[in-house]
């Protein structure tokens, strides 16, 4: 539960790691924070199980919702987003 700072190692405790659960799985943390959470998961089996559960859940939900029909407003929104993202992507290199 406590932050561990032993022999110069600075890694998160359980609470700090769990506070960053979503951001860690989505890779939205800074490189340093991502490293500290990763280090914690290597030594804490309980937290690793919790993170694995959330990871599996998000992936499973994404898989399950890929092929479902969305209501009309979302279908239209999705289409606009896809178009917007395509515009952002760099085109093929000119030869």
């Amino acid at each position, binding site marked *: 539960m406590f932050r561990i700072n032993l022999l110069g190692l600075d890694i998160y405790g359980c609470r700090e790691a*769990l506070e960053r*659960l*979503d*951001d*860690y799985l*989505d890779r*939205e943390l800074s490189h340093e924070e991502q490293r500290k*959470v*990763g280090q914690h*998961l290597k030594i804490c089996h309980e937290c*690793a*199980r*919790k*993170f*694995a*559960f*959330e*990871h*599996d*859940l*998000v992936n*499973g*939900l*994404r898989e*399950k*919702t*890929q*092929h*479902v*029909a*969305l*209501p009309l407003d*979302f279908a239209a*929104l*999705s289409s606009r*987003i*896809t178009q*917007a*993202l395509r515009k952002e992507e760099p085109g093929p290199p000119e030869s």
Partner: protein
Amino acid sequence: LQESAILAFRAFDGFERDTNFKAWFGRVLHNCFLQRVRTANRRPQTVSAEDDDQLDALYLFDRTRQAGMHGRGQGDPAGVLLDALDGDQIRDALVALPDEYRVVATLYFVQELTYEQIAQVVECPLNTVRSRLHRSRRLLQRALWELAQERGLVLTDDPSSAKRPRNKNSSGLSSLLLMLLVPMQACALSCAGTTSKKRDYKAGGALYSYHVQNQPFRP
């Protein structure tokens, strides 16, 4: 439909003999539908503080563990739970989220956008997206758990499930009601001109017979 059948059962005194039962039940069905729409429209679009307090970060992890789904050889509990629900049910749970959470959750789960991309689409600060996503995940977890409970896919002594009146009234009255419900449902379906669509729900307890090796988490 079951709600309509219960209403019809209660209001059966109002049914005049030798009149068209199908038409009468059709009216009950229609009124029930209108009532649902009105109730849904009155439903608040934000989550109350009380609800928020009950939304712990590991809601589904804790519930599945309490339900004994984390034992050795029982497989990945999140996957087992999701496998027991079909895509339409999950879609319905997603669509039923309050507006502010539904939008970000759909962009996140279905479109698989990053936080920054979601922020651009909904024109909100990044931290707003982050907090909404966090809460929408928990709301969705709660909805999925309730769905699994309703479908009898998980066995649990979760105190919240004890509040459901349907679990308490397993007396002779329920049996009598069931006997009435079956022909009434058939009647209503023929009245509406539809055929019964068989749902692909897994049998209760299926979650417990799912055996694969637990895989260690590798971030």
